[in-house]
Protein backbone atom coordinates (compact mmCIF):
# COMPACT_ATOMS: atom_id res chain seq x y z
CA UNK A 1 0.00 0.00 0.00
CA UNK A 2 2.72 2.44 1.01
CA UNK A 3 6.38 1.63 0.79
CA UNK A 4 9.18 4.09 1.38
CA UNK A 5 12.83 3.32 0.95
CA UNK A 6 15.93 5.38 1.42
CA UNK A 7 13.87 8.53 1.56
CA UNK A 8 15.55 11.85 2.26
CA UNK A 9 13.70 15.13 2.31
CA UNK A 10 14.59 18.79 2.57
CA UNK A 11 12.97 21.98 3.77
CA UNK A 12 14.07 25.50 2.92
CA UNK A 13 16.84 23.99 0.81
CA UNK A 14 18.41 22.02 3.66
CA UNK A 15 18.12 18.25 4.15
CA UNK A 16 16.18 17.54 7.32
CA UNK A 17 15.59 13.78 7.27
CA UNK A 18 17.45 10.97 5.55
CA UNK A 19 17.54 7.21 5.31
CA UNK A 20 13.88 6.59 6.00
CA UNK A 21 12.62 3.08 5.22
CA UNK A 22 9.19 1.88 6.13
CA UNK A 23 6.15 0.18 4.76
CA UNK A 24 2.57 0.40 5.88
CA UNK A 25 0.21 -2.46 5.08
CA UNK A 26 -3.53 -2.13 4.46
CA UNK A 27 -5.42 -1.60 7.69
CA UNK A 28 -2.41 -0.23 9.43
CA UNK A 29 -1.55 3.21 10.76
CA UNK A 30 1.87 4.65 11.42
CA UNK A 31 2.43 7.38 13.99
CA UNK A 32 5.29 9.82 13.41
CA UNK A 33 6.89 11.14 16.54
CA UNK A 34 9.67 13.60 17.06
CA UNK A 35 10.46 16.91 18.68
CA UNK A 36 9.35 20.19 17.13
CA UNK A 37 11.29 21.00 14.03
CA UNK A 38 12.52 17.47 13.32
CA UNK A 39 10.72 17.35 9.99
CA UNK A 40 7.35 15.66 10.40
CA UNK A 41 5.54 18.19 8.30
CA UNK A 42 8.28 18.02 5.69
CA UNK A 43 8.03 14.24 5.52
CA UNK A 44 4.27 14.29 5.13
CA UNK A 45 4.41 16.93 2.42
CA UNK A 46 6.97 14.86 0.57
CA UNK A 47 4.86 11.73 0.86
CA UNK A 48 1.82 13.62 -0.36
CA UNK A 49 3.75 14.74 -3.41
CA UNK A 50 3.77 18.44 -2.66
CA UNK A 51 7.53 18.62 -2.68
CA UNK A 52 10.12 16.44 -4.38
CA UNK A 53 12.15 13.94 -2.37
CA UNK A 54 15.89 14.49 -2.21
CA UNK A 55 16.56 10.80 -2.56
CA UNK A 56 14.81 7.48 -2.25
CA UNK A 57 11.52 6.17 -3.55
CA UNK A 58 7.92 6.36 -2.44
CA UNK A 59 5.47 3.75 -3.69
CA UNK A 60 1.80 4.40 -3.14
CA UNK A 61 -1.20 2.84 -4.76
CA UNK A 62 -2.05 5.23 -7.56
CA UNK A 63 -4.79 7.79 -6.92
CA UNK A 64 -5.20 6.79 -3.34
CA UNK A 65 -3.26 9.42 -1.41
CA UNK A 66 -4.78 12.37 0.37
CA UNK A 67 -3.14 14.98 2.50
CA UNK A 68 -4.52 16.58 5.64
CA UNK A 69 -2.46 19.58 6.54
CA UNK A 70 -2.13 21.60 9.62
CA UNK A 71 -4.52 24.15 8.19
CA UNK A 72 -7.98 22.87 7.38
CA UNK A 73 -8.76 24.57 4.11
CA UNK A 74 -12.21 25.27 5.50
CA UNK A 75 -14.08 28.12 3.82
CA UNK A 76 -15.53 30.46 6.41
CA UNK A 77 -18.28 31.70 4.14
CA UNK A 78 -19.67 28.24 3.36
CA UNK A 79 -21.70 26.18 5.73
CA UNK A 80 -20.38 22.98 7.23
CA UNK A 81 -22.35 20.90 4.79
CA UNK A 82 -21.35 22.96 1.77
CA UNK A 83 -17.72 22.63 2.72
CA UNK A 84 -17.97 18.86 2.84
CA UNK A 85 -20.08 18.64 -0.27
CA UNK A 86 -17.43 20.58 -2.17
CA UNK A 87 -14.64 18.22 -1.19
CA UNK A 88 -16.74 15.20 -2.01
CA UNK A 89 -17.41 16.65 -5.46
CA UNK A 90 -13.74 17.40 -6.06
CA UNK A 91 -13.02 13.75 -5.43
CA UNK A 92 -15.92 12.77 -7.63
CA UNK A 93 -18.08 11.30 -4.87
CA UNK A 94 -21.41 11.88 -3.26
CA UNK A 95 -21.62 13.24 0.24
CA UNK A 96 -21.77 10.35 2.66
CA UNK A 97 -24.25 11.38 5.36
CA UNK A 98 -22.72 9.23 8.08
CA UNK A 99 -19.86 11.66 8.30
CA UNK A 100 -21.97 14.12 10.28
CA UNK A 101 -22.50 11.56 13.01
CA UNK A 102 -18.90 10.36 12.87
CA UNK A 103 -17.58 13.82 13.62
CA UNK A 104 -20.44 15.09 15.74
CA UNK A 105 -21.26 17.78 13.20
CA UNK A 106 -24.98 17.11 12.83
CA UNK A 107 -26.06 20.08 14.97
CA UNK A 108 -23.64 22.38 13.15
CA UNK A 109 -24.58 21.30 9.67
CA UNK A 110 -26.12 24.58 8.53
CA UNK A 111 -23.72 26.85 10.44
CA UNK A 112 -21.31 28.99 8.45
CA UNK A 113 -17.89 27.54 9.10
CA UNK A 114 -16.58 30.96 10.10
CA UNK A 115 -18.70 30.94 13.23
CA UNK A 116 -17.33 27.67 14.57
CA UNK A 117 -15.03 27.47 17.56
CA UNK A 118 -11.50 26.31 16.85
CA UNK A 119 -12.22 22.72 17.86
CA UNK A 120 -15.43 22.57 15.86
CA UNK A 121 -13.63 23.88 12.82
CA UNK A 122 -10.97 21.27 13.24
CA UNK A 123 -13.62 18.55 13.37
CA UNK A 124 -14.94 19.89 10.09
CA UNK A 125 -11.46 19.79 8.63
CA UNK A 126 -11.11 16.17 9.67
CA UNK A 127 -14.54 15.25 8.37
CA UNK A 128 -13.17 16.02 4.90
CA UNK A 129 -11.19 12.82 5.21
CA UNK A 130 -14.43 10.96 5.64
CA UNK A 131 -15.97 12.18 2.39
CA UNK A 132 -13.13 11.91 -0.09
CA UNK A 133 -12.84 8.14 0.03
CA UNK A 134 -9.09 7.93 -0.18
CA UNK A 135 -7.23 4.96 1.23
CA UNK A 136 -3.84 6.48 2.04
CA UNK A 137 -4.00 9.42 4.42
CA UNK A 138 -1.14 11.67 5.44
CA UNK A 139 -2.20 13.64 8.48
CA UNK A 140 -0.31 16.48 10.10
CA UNK A 141 -1.26 16.98 13.75
CA UNK A 142 -4.91 16.20 13.18
CA UNK A 143 -5.97 16.58 16.79
CA UNK A 144 -4.90 20.15 17.36
CA UNK A 145 -7.55 22.12 19.28
CA UNK A 146 -9.65 19.03 19.89
CA UNK A 147 -10.96 18.17 23.34
CA UNK A 148 -10.57 14.63 24.62
CA UNK A 149 -14.03 13.54 23.48
CA UNK A 150 -13.33 14.75 19.95
CA UNK A 151 -9.95 13.05 19.91
CA UNK A 152 -11.67 9.79 20.80
CA UNK A 153 -14.23 10.43 18.07
CA UNK A 154 -11.48 10.90 15.55
CA UNK A 155 -9.60 7.81 16.71
CA UNK A 156 -12.80 5.82 16.37
CA UNK A 157 -13.29 7.11 12.85
CA UNK A 158 -9.76 6.12 11.93
CA UNK A 159 -10.03 2.68 13.48
CA UNK A 160 -13.55 1.67 12.56
CA UNK A 161 -14.13 3.45 9.29
CA UNK A 162 -10.80 3.99 7.71
CA UNK A 163 -8.41 1.26 8.80
CA UNK A 164 -11.12 -1.36 9.07
CA UNK A 165 -11.90 -0.77 5.40
CA UNK A 166 -8.31 -1.51 4.51
CA UNK A 167 -7.05 2.06 4.57
CA UNK A 168 -3.67 3.30 5.61
CA UNK A 169 -2.71 6.38 7.60
CA UNK A 170 0.52 8.13 8.45
CA UNK A 171 -0.05 10.54 11.30
CA UNK A 172 2.23 13.11 12.86
CA UNK A 173 1.11 13.90 16.37
CA UNK A 174 2.43 14.89 19.75
CA UNK A 175 -0.39 13.35 21.74
CA UNK A 176 -1.55 9.82 22.22
CA UNK A 177 -4.40 8.97 19.87
CA UNK A 178 -5.28 5.74 21.62
CA UNK A 179 -4.67 3.87 18.38
CA UNK A 180 -2.91 0.57 18.45
CA UNK A 181 -0.34 1.60 15.85
CA UNK A 182 3.42 1.36 15.48
CA UNK A 183 5.32 4.53 16.24
CA UNK A 184 8.15 5.78 14.08
CA UNK A 185 10.49 7.95 16.10
CA UNK A 186 12.07 10.40 13.65
CA UNK A 187 14.96 11.65 15.78
CA UNK A 188 17.40 8.95 14.57
CA UNK A 189 16.77 9.95 10.97
CA UNK A 190 17.75 13.57 11.36
CA UNK A 191 19.92 14.44 8.40
CA UNK A 192 23.57 14.59 9.33
CA UNK A 193 25.50 17.78 8.78
CA UNK A 194 27.23 16.06 5.86
CA UNK A 195 23.98 15.02 4.17
CA UNK A 196 23.92 15.58 0.43
CA UNK A 197 21.25 17.50 -1.38
CA UNK A 198 21.19 21.00 0.05
CA UNK A 199 20.21 23.38 -2.71
CA UNK A 200 23.22 25.56 -2.03
CA UNK A 201 25.65 22.70 -1.86
CA UNK A 202 27.37 23.76 -5.06
CA UNK A 203 28.41 26.98 -3.40
CA UNK A 204 30.41 25.48 -0.58
Amino acid at each position, binding site marked *: MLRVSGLACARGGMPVLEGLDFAVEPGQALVLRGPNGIGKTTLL*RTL*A*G*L*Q*PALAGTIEIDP*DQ*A*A*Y*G*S*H*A*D*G*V*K*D*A*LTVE*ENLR*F*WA*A*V*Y*GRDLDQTVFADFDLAPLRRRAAGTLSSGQKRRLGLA*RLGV*IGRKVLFLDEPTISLDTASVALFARFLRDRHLAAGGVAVIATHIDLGLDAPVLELAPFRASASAKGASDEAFL
Partner: protein
Amino acid sequence: MIALLLRDLRLAVRAGGGFGLGLAFFLIVVVLVPFGVGSETAVLSRIAPGILWVAALLASLLTLDRVFALDYEDGALPLLLTAPLPAEGVTLVKALAHWMTSGLPLTLAAPVLGILLNIEPAAIMPLFLSLLIGTPALSMIGTFGAALTVGLRRGGLLLSLLVLPMYVPTLIFGAEAVARGAAELSMQVPLLLLAGLTAGSIALLPLAAAAALRVNLR
Protein backbone atom coordinates in the same frame (compact mmCIF):
# COMPACT_ATOMS: atom_id res chain seq x y z
CA MET B 1 -13.80 21.24 -11.81
CA ILE B 2 -17.39 22.37 -11.97
CA ALA B 3 -17.59 21.99 -8.22
CA LEU B 4 -14.60 24.30 -7.92
CA LEU B 5 -16.15 26.85 -10.24
CA LEU B 6 -19.42 26.79 -8.34
CA ARG B 7 -17.63 27.09 -5.04
CA ASP B 8 -15.60 30.06 -6.20
CA LEU B 9 -18.65 31.83 -7.55
CA ARG B 10 -20.55 31.14 -4.37
CA LEU B 11 -17.69 32.43 -2.26
CA ALA B 12 -17.50 35.55 -4.38
CA VAL B 13 -21.18 36.18 -3.85
CA ARG B 14 -21.07 35.48 -0.12
CA ALA B 15 -17.99 37.61 0.43
CA GLY B 16 -20.27 40.54 -0.15
CA GLY B 17 -21.53 41.00 -3.61
CA GLY B 18 -18.84 39.36 -5.71
CA PHE B 19 -20.24 40.64 -8.96
CA GLY B 20 -21.12 44.03 -7.64
CA LEU B 21 -17.85 45.17 -6.18
CA GLY B 22 -15.73 45.02 -9.32
CA LEU B 23 -18.42 46.96 -11.01
CA ALA B 24 -18.58 49.50 -8.25
CA PHE B 25 -14.88 50.09 -8.49
CA PHE B 26 -15.22 50.53 -12.22
CA LEU B 27 -17.98 53.04 -11.65
CA ILE B 28 -15.99 55.00 -9.12
CA VAL B 29 -12.93 55.25 -11.32
CA VAL B 30 -15.10 56.46 -14.13
CA VAL B 31 -16.63 59.03 -11.82
CA LEU B 32 -13.28 60.18 -10.45
CA VAL B 33 -11.75 60.89 -13.82
CA PRO B 34 -13.98 63.89 -14.61
CA PHE B 35 -13.15 65.29 -11.18
CA GLY B 36 -9.51 65.00 -12.08
CA VAL B 37 -9.48 66.20 -15.67
CA GLY B 38 -12.40 68.61 -15.57
CA SER B 39 -15.77 68.23 -17.14
CA GLU B 40 -15.31 69.55 -20.67
CA THR B 41 -17.50 67.34 -22.80
CA ALA B 42 -15.20 67.39 -25.80
CA VAL B 43 -12.19 66.20 -23.84
CA LEU B 44 -14.19 63.60 -21.98
CA SER B 45 -15.78 62.05 -25.00
CA ARG B 46 -12.37 62.01 -26.66
CA ILE B 47 -10.77 60.05 -23.82
CA ALA B 48 -13.80 58.02 -22.77
CA PRO B 49 -13.05 54.71 -24.51
CA GLY B 50 -9.47 54.74 -23.34
CA ILE B 51 -10.41 55.56 -19.78
CA LEU B 52 -13.04 52.85 -19.76
CA TRP B 53 -10.53 50.30 -20.94
CA VAL B 54 -7.96 51.41 -18.38
CA ALA B 55 -10.60 51.34 -15.66
CA ALA B 56 -11.62 47.83 -16.69
CA LEU B 57 -8.00 46.78 -16.47
CA LEU B 58 -7.65 48.23 -13.00
CA ALA B 59 -10.91 46.74 -11.78
CA SER B 60 -9.85 43.37 -13.06
CA LEU B 61 -6.51 43.84 -11.35
CA LEU B 62 -8.01 44.72 -8.02
CA THR B 63 -9.85 41.43 -7.77
CA LEU B 64 -6.85 39.36 -8.78
CA ASP B 65 -5.44 38.86 -5.33
CA ARG B 66 -8.55 36.93 -4.44
CA VAL B 67 -7.81 34.32 -7.03
CA PHE B 68 -5.40 32.15 -5.08
CA ALA B 69 -4.50 34.03 -1.94
CA LEU B 70 -7.61 33.06 0.03
CA ASP B 71 -7.12 29.41 -0.72
CA TYR B 72 -3.48 29.74 0.15
CA GLU B 73 -4.11 31.35 3.49
CA ASP B 74 -6.66 28.88 4.77
CA GLY B 75 -4.66 25.93 3.51
CA ALA B 76 -7.08 24.84 0.80
CA LEU B 77 -4.55 25.25 -2.00
CA PRO B 78 -2.25 22.34 -1.11
CA LEU B 79 -5.33 20.23 -0.60
CA LEU B 80 -6.62 21.19 -4.04
CA LEU B 81 -3.30 20.42 -5.66
CA THR B 82 -3.16 16.99 -4.08
CA ALA B 83 -6.76 16.34 -5.11
CA PRO B 84 -7.51 14.54 -8.37
CA LEU B 85 -7.72 17.75 -10.37
CA PRO B 86 -4.94 18.73 -12.78
CA ALA B 87 -3.25 21.89 -11.58
CA GLU B 88 -3.75 23.38 -15.04
CA GLY B 89 -7.46 22.76 -14.69
CA VAL B 90 -7.48 24.47 -11.32
CA THR B 91 -5.85 27.58 -12.73
CA LEU B 92 -8.16 27.62 -15.70
CA VAL B 93 -11.23 27.35 -13.51
CA LYS B 94 -9.90 30.06 -11.25
CA ALA B 95 -9.42 32.33 -14.24
CA LEU B 96 -12.90 31.54 -15.45
CA ALA B 97 -14.40 32.32 -12.06
CA HIS B 98 -12.46 35.55 -11.99
CA TRP B 99 -13.73 36.51 -15.40
CA MET B 100 -17.32 35.73 -14.49
CA THR B 101 -17.13 37.92 -11.41
CA SER B 102 -15.15 40.77 -12.89
CA GLY B 103 -14.71 40.82 -16.67
CA LEU B 104 -18.23 39.85 -17.56
CA PRO B 105 -20.09 42.33 -15.36
CA LEU B 106 -17.67 45.05 -16.43
CA THR B 107 -18.38 44.34 -20.05
CA LEU B 108 -22.08 44.53 -19.47
CA ALA B 109 -21.82 47.76 -17.53
CA ALA B 110 -19.33 49.54 -19.74
CA PRO B 111 -21.86 50.91 -22.27
CA VAL B 112 -23.83 52.54 -19.49
CA LEU B 113 -20.77 54.05 -17.90
CA GLY B 114 -19.64 55.20 -21.31
CA ILE B 115 -22.68 57.39 -21.43
CA LEU B 116 -21.57 59.02 -18.17
CA LEU B 117 -18.36 59.98 -19.92
CA ASN B 118 -20.20 61.28 -23.01
CA ILE B 119 -18.83 58.55 -25.17
CA GLU B 120 -19.76 58.84 -28.82
CA PRO B 121 -22.73 56.64 -29.64
CA ALA B 122 -20.84 54.94 -32.44
CA ALA B 123 -18.22 53.78 -29.96
CA ILE B 124 -20.58 51.96 -27.63
CA MET B 125 -20.93 48.75 -29.57
CA PRO B 126 -17.21 48.49 -30.32
CA LEU B 127 -16.46 49.10 -26.65
CA PHE B 128 -18.78 46.30 -25.63
CA LEU B 129 -17.39 43.90 -28.21
CA SER B 130 -13.78 44.61 -27.50
CA LEU B 131 -14.29 44.19 -23.75
CA LEU B 132 -16.17 40.96 -24.30
CA ILE B 133 -13.36 39.54 -26.39
CA GLY B 134 -10.51 41.07 -24.43
CA THR B 135 -11.40 40.63 -20.76
CA PRO B 136 -10.93 36.84 -20.69
CA ALA B 137 -7.29 37.45 -21.61
CA LEU B 138 -7.04 39.87 -18.73
CA SER B 139 -8.34 37.27 -16.31
CA MET B 140 -6.03 34.59 -17.59
CA ILE B 141 -2.94 36.78 -17.54
CA GLY B 142 -3.90 37.97 -14.10
CA THR B 143 -4.32 34.44 -12.84
CA PHE B 144 -0.81 33.70 -13.99
CA GLY B 145 0.42 36.72 -12.06
CA ALA B 146 -1.54 35.61 -9.01
CA ALA B 147 0.01 32.15 -9.21
CA LEU B 148 3.46 33.73 -9.30
CA THR B 149 2.88 35.79 -6.20
CA VAL B 150 0.72 33.46 -4.14
CA GLY B 151 3.42 32.60 -1.64
CA LEU B 152 4.01 36.21 -0.76
CA ARG B 153 2.00 37.72 2.00
CA ARG B 154 -0.18 40.36 0.43
CA GLY B 155 1.63 40.46 -2.86
CA GLY B 156 -1.07 42.76 -4.25
CA LEU B 157 1.14 45.56 -5.41
CA LEU B 158 3.83 43.29 -6.77
CA LEU B 159 1.09 41.51 -8.61
CA SER B 160 0.07 44.71 -10.34
CA LEU B 161 3.64 45.42 -11.26
CA LEU B 162 3.96 42.01 -12.88
CA VAL B 163 0.58 41.92 -14.52
CA LEU B 164 -0.01 45.42 -15.84
CA PRO B 165 2.83 45.37 -18.38
CA MET B 166 1.46 42.11 -19.69
CA TYR B 167 -1.90 43.80 -20.11
CA VAL B 168 -0.42 46.28 -22.57
CA PRO B 169 -1.12 44.42 -25.82
CA THR B 170 -4.68 43.66 -24.79
CA LEU B 171 -5.23 47.27 -23.90
CA ILE B 172 -3.76 48.53 -27.14
CA PHE B 173 -5.82 46.26 -29.35
CA GLY B 174 -8.93 46.84 -27.31
CA ALA B 175 -8.65 50.61 -27.27
CA GLU B 176 -7.71 50.60 -30.93
CA ALA B 177 -10.78 48.60 -31.82
CA VAL B 178 -12.97 51.12 -30.04
CA ALA B 179 -11.18 54.04 -31.62
CA ARG B 180 -11.71 52.57 -35.08
CA GLY B 181 -15.27 51.69 -34.33
CA ALA B 182 -15.93 55.24 -33.19
CA ALA B 183 -14.39 56.53 -36.41
CA GLU B 184 -16.59 54.07 -38.30
CA LEU B 185 -13.58 52.23 -39.68
CA SER B 186 -13.32 48.47 -39.83
CA MET B 187 -12.53 46.98 -36.44
CA GLN B 188 -11.84 43.56 -37.80
CA VAL B 189 -8.06 43.59 -37.47
CA PRO B 190 -7.78 44.69 -33.85
CA LEU B 191 -10.66 42.47 -32.81
CA LEU B 192 -9.05 39.48 -34.48
CA LEU B 193 -5.77 40.25 -32.80
CA LEU B 194 -7.57 40.57 -29.51
CA ALA B 195 -9.28 37.22 -30.02
CA GLY B 196 -5.92 35.69 -30.88
CA LEU B 197 -4.46 37.08 -27.69
CA THR B 198 -7.31 35.66 -25.65
CA ALA B 199 -7.11 32.27 -27.30
CA GLY B 200 -3.34 32.15 -26.92
CA SER B 201 -3.48 33.09 -23.26
CA ILE B 202 -6.11 30.49 -22.51
CA ALA B 203 -4.16 27.82 -24.33
CA LEU B 204 -0.74 28.48 -22.87
CA LEU B 205 -0.89 30.39 -19.62
CA PRO B 206 -2.57 27.66 -17.54
CA LEU B 207 0.61 25.63 -17.99
CA ALA B 208 2.81 28.43 -16.76
CA ALA B 209 0.43 29.26 -13.94
CA ALA B 210 0.25 25.64 -12.79
CA ALA B 211 4.04 25.43 -12.80
CA ALA B 212 4.28 28.59 -10.75
CA LEU B 213 1.69 27.28 -8.29
CA ARG B 214 3.58 24.05 -7.79
CA VAL B 215 6.82 25.88 -7.21
CA ASN B 216 5.14 28.14 -4.71
CA LEU B 217 3.68 25.28 -2.74
CA ARG B 218 6.86 23.27 -2.74
